[in-house]
C-alpha cells in the first residue's frame, strides 16, 4: 500500500487532518567552513502557500534543495508526513519523488522537447496510460496555466513568464502532493509575477497541495504569503504571515521588507 495514501480514508475520501505536510527538525548544513543552514525548525502545512524569504545568500535555495533531497543535511530530520526522508529506502524515496512537483528558477524545461513532450515526459515515464488519456491531462494542465495552444512550441520559442507557467504545468501534471517553487518571479515583470503568484495560490488551494515558495519578492510575499519563514544568514529568525510581516520588529526582516526609500518613508509616516 502506498504510504502517501494514508491521507485518504477507506472510501478514498481526502482527510484534511491527515493531509500531506513537511516538518523540519534541526536541519543544519555546512559547505566547508561556511554554515549555510543552522538548526532550522519549521512545519509547512497543506493547502497553504508557505514562503521562505530572505536576502540573497541566506540559504533559501539550499534549504529547498535539502527538502527535495538534492542536498543531504549534516544534521537534523526532515519528515514528509511521518516518514523521515533519510530513513526512506530507495522505493519509498522514488514514490515520494513522484508526489513532488518543482518549479525551478530557470524553469528547467527540456530544450530538445516541445512543450507537450515536456509535460508528457513524467506521465510516460511513470504512468504509461493510453495516449489519449495522457494528452487530455497535458491539455488540461496547459489550459490551467493559460497556455492552451502552445503544445508544439519549443522552450526556446517561449518568453520567461511562459516558461515558468509551462514549468508549473509540468510540476502539476502528476498531481503532486508537494509543490516547490524556487524564486518563481525572478526575471519577470510585476504583472506577470502577480499572475504566476495567483496561479500558484489557486493550484495550492484547489488541489490541497503543500506548497513551498522561495522568494525575496515582497510583492509576492504580501500577495499570497499565508505562512512565511524568514531566513537570515542560515538561521530562521522570524515566522508569521503577510499580516504580521509589516508589524515585525525583526531588524534584518525589516531591512528586506522596507528595502526601498519609498517604503522606508512610508513606514516612517505610518509610525
Amino acid at each position, binding site marked *: 500500500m502506498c504510504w502517501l495514501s494514508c491521507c485518504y480514508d477507506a472510501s478514498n475520501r481526502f482527510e484534511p487532518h491527515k493531509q500531506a505536510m513537511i516538518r523540519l527538525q534541526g536541519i543544519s548544513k555546512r559547505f566547508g567552513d561556511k554554515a549555510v543552514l543552522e538548526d532550522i525548525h519549521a512545519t509547512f502545512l497543506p493547502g497553504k502557500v508557505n514562503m521562505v524569504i530572505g536576502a540573497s545568500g541566506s540559504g533559501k535555495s539550499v534549504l529547498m*534543495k535539502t527538502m*527535495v*533531497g*538534492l542536498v543531504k543535511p549534516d544534521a537534523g530530520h526532515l519528515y514528509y508526513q511521518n516518514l523521515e526522508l533519510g530513513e526512506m529506502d530507495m522505493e519509498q524515496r*522514488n*514514490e515520494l*519523488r*513522484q508526489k*513532488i512537483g*518543482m518549479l*525551478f*528558477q*530557470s524553469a*528547467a*524545461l*527540456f*530544450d530538445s522537447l516541445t512543450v507537450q513532450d515536456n509535460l508528457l*515526459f*513524467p506521465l*510516460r*515515464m*511513470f504512468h*504509461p496510460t493510453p495516449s489519449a488519456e495522457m494528452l487530455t491531462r497535458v491539455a488540461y494542465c496547459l489550459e490551467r496555466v493559460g497556455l492552451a495552444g502552445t503544445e508544439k512550441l519549443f522552450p526556446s520559442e517561449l518568453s520567461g513568464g511562459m516558461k515558468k507557467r509551462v514549468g508549473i504545468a509540468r510540476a502539476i501534471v*502528476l498531481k503532486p502532493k508537494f509543490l516547490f517553487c524556487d524564486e518563481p518571479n525572478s526575471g519577470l515583470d510585476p504583472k506577470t509575477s502577480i499572475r504566476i503568484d495567483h496561479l500558484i495560490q489557486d493550484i495550492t488551494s484547489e488541489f490541497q497541495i503543500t506548497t513551498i515558495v522561495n522568494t525575496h519578492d515582497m510583492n509576492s510575499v504580501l500577495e499570497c504569503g499565508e505562512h512565511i519563514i524568514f531566513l537570515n544568514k542560515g538561521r530562521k529568525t522570524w515566522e508569521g504571515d503577510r499580516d504580521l510581516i509589516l508589524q515585525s520588529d525583526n531588524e534584518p526582516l525589516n531591512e528586506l521588507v522596507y528595502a526601498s526609500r519609498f517604503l522606508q518613508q512610508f513606514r516612517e509616516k505610518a509610525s
Partner: protein
Amino acid sequence: MDTILFHFGLTPTTSLLRMTFFYHFGRYLMMMRQMLRRPENGRMYWEETVRQMSSIGLGSVGIVAFVAVFMGGVSAVQTVYQLVAPYISLTVVGSIVTNSSILELGPTITSLVLAGKIGSNIASELGYMRSSEQIDALEIMGVNPVAYLVGPKMVACLTMIPLLVITSISMSILGGMVICQLTGLITYDQFIEGARSSFLAYDVFFAMCKAVTFAFFISSVSAYHGYHVQGGALEVGRASTKAVVYCCVLILLGDYVLAQLLL
C-alpha cells in the same frame, strides 16, 4: 603530516595529485554503478538509446568517411614514395595500406576524431543540462538521471563506434585503392592482390577490441566531465575541453596497452 608523507616517499604535491586521482576515479566508479540501476521505464530508455544511436552513428558517418578516404589515399601515396627499390613488388602497397587501416588508422585515428566530435558533444550537452538545472529536474521527478542520460549514450557509443570504425577501415582501403588507380601508381588488381595476401581475420578482431575500448573511454569519460559540471557557461566549455583531452590521452594509452596485450 608532510614528514609522515615524506617517510612514505610522498611529497605533499604528489600525495595531493594521488588524492585528486582517487577522488575522481571513485566518483567515476560511483557514476558507473548508479548507471546500472533498473530503468524506471524500459521503453523510454530504449527510445532514448535509439535517438542517441541515430545522433552518434548517422551524425558521424560523413566526417568519418571523409577522414578515412584521405587517410587511405595519403598512406598509399607515401608507401609508394618509400618503396622505390625495384625488387619490391608494388602489390605490397595494398598490403600495407590494408594492414595499417585495419590495425591502426581505422580504429585509432577514427576514435581520436570521434573523441573530438562525440566526446565534446556529450560533455557539453550534459554540462548544459546540469547548469540549467535540467538534471535536478529529472532527479526530482524520480528519474535516475545517470541511467537515463548517460546509459543510452554509452550503449549508443558501444554499438555505433565499432560500426563507424568498420566504415572507416573500408573507406580507408577504398580511398587508397582509388588514389592508386587514379594516379597510376598501381592498378586495382595489384592493390587487391596485396590486400588479400596479408589479410588476417584476427586483425579485424583486434580492431574491434580497440573500437569497443575506445568507445567506452569516449562515452564514459566525457559523460563524467559533463555530468559533474559546477557553474555556468565557462565551466561547461572547460568540461568539454577536458573531456576531449582525457579521451585522447586514454585512447593513445589504451592503444599501446592493447597492442602489447593482443599482438
